[in-house]
């Protein structure tokens, strides 16, 4: 990948991350931290490539550990985030007395 293009991607992604989170209410801090924790579980994809291209036994072992850890990050992050967010429900009453 062209170095400069990559830097563009980095800059835009950094702004995106900042803007997406900027106005998050405190009540969602924990689920959101968990959710962003899930998103970097995409590292699984890289670990798969590392294992897929491993030739020596040592590379295979490290790659295997990498995929185990990456899959744990992705799946675990998803399960706990979903469990937390599943519970957020509105009362269904009209919010007539909103502060």
């Amino acid at each position, binding site marked *: 990948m062209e*170095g400069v293009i*990559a830097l563009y991607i*980095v800059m835009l*992604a950094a702004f*995106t*991350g*900042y803007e*997406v989170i900027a*106005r998050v*209410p*405190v*009540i*969602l801090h*924990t689920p*959101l*931290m*968990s959710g*962003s*924790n*899930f*998103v*970097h*579980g*995409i590292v*699984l*994809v*890289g670990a*798969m490539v*590392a*294992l897929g*291209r491993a030739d020596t036994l*040592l590379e*295979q072992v*490290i*790659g295997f550990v*990498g*995929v*185990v*850890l*990456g*899959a*744990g*990050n*992705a*799946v*675990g*992050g*998803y*399960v*706990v985030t*979903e*469990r*937390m967010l599943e*519970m*957020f*429900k*509105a*009362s269904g*009453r009209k919010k007539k007395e909103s*502060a």
Partner: protein
Amino acid sequence: MPGLLPENVATLAIDFSYLLVAFLFIMGLKAMSSPVTARRGIVVAGIGMLIGTLMSFLYPGMGNFALMLAAIAIGGGLAWWSGRIVAMTDMPQMIALYNGMGGGAAAAIAAVELLRMTSVPADGAVHHGPVVTALAAAGAFIGVVSFSGSLIAFGKLQGLIKRSFRFAGQQAANLLIAAATLALGGWIVVSGHPTLEMVIGFFGLALLLGVTMTLPIGGADMPVVISLYNAFTGLAVAFEGFVLENAAMIIAGIVVGSAGTLLTQLMAKAMNRSLGNVLFSGFGEGPAAEASGVTGALKPIEPSDAGVMMAFAQKVLVVPGYGMAVAQAQHKVWELCQLLIDKGVMVRFAIHPVAGRMPGHMNVLLAEAGVPYDLISDLDEINAEFETADVALVIGANDVVNPVARTDKSSPIYGMPILNADKSRNVLVIKRGQGAGFSGIENHLFYLDNTRMVYGDAQKVAAELIHAVKAAG
């Protein structure tokens, strides 16, 4: 090795799928920042992850598919199982654990790349240029620190590590380890042909650094640290994304890195702590504050009388703390509140940013009990309402309602925003015993004229209050 598809077709398909993955991740995170759409958000991001993972099997030149599937089954299976059974109160340490795994995975990718460089003959072509090597090493450094640091954070919150290890010159020692790690990393990059010993030493030192950095940090500050390591892992993933030329990893990693950094700052701010303060000094390192100028006495009240008081109130504000969650009282408390609401009492939950073990944790615990989120207000929204409240019901909360934070400059919690429970007409405090709170600071709220103490286990007291409210007709 041939891939599953012709090389150019596979590459194109993967590139486009990663574009979709990045889009779904960003949309998912965006949705997750509002309680109304949050649930949809994680599902959207999950679909992105699934697409990315499936498409990655198509990479040209890959083998070891059996190993790969086995590894996914093991890692994913264990994580699925542990994520399903973990109690909501233990959520912070599970997030730390999964985050550490991500850091470890990023480090593993770097390890494979760096090890491959050791096997290149000295006169052969360099496997990676210095820039890519530096990125791989930087990702390894951050990833490994996040890995071992997160595991220590997990151990501390889980109660496996009880002590905070502090000694004189600790920061100097940490600095020394960090400098040595970076120097070794620099050597690997400059040499272009690292030896196996160099790589092992580099990873070993980084592992050690994560441990020694995290051990002295107290449990109360741990959420901020976990959030910081979360951002670290994001960066490590992005760096390894550069090495593998994987756009999905770069975008997702950087987005998490920047969002995580902001989230860390928000959390630190909510806890009235600066990030530097969290990382480089333990909580309450100075001598414990004396209980200065406590006047009045603790005035107990029977649950039956307390129940009547609430049954005839117009407005009740509930201030839950971690003590309520420990006693598993949130279901009973919500039952009590529903009774009051049916009687026409206006009930709100007032949540301090640090109620629970990390910002937002208490909201999750209340949501688990079925409390709708529109009855839950945070500090800024609700604080003015205490003045018009008939009863402030404080359950297992302590420091977050201590008026000392407003008045006593010598107190360690001075300046921390608190819930103004003391301003309401009556204050009911449900508390297990007469001891001081988490920080060991005497709570002046408990001694006020309008405060009554209800002693007992929060769950049992809540049951008795329900009984009393029902009896009040």
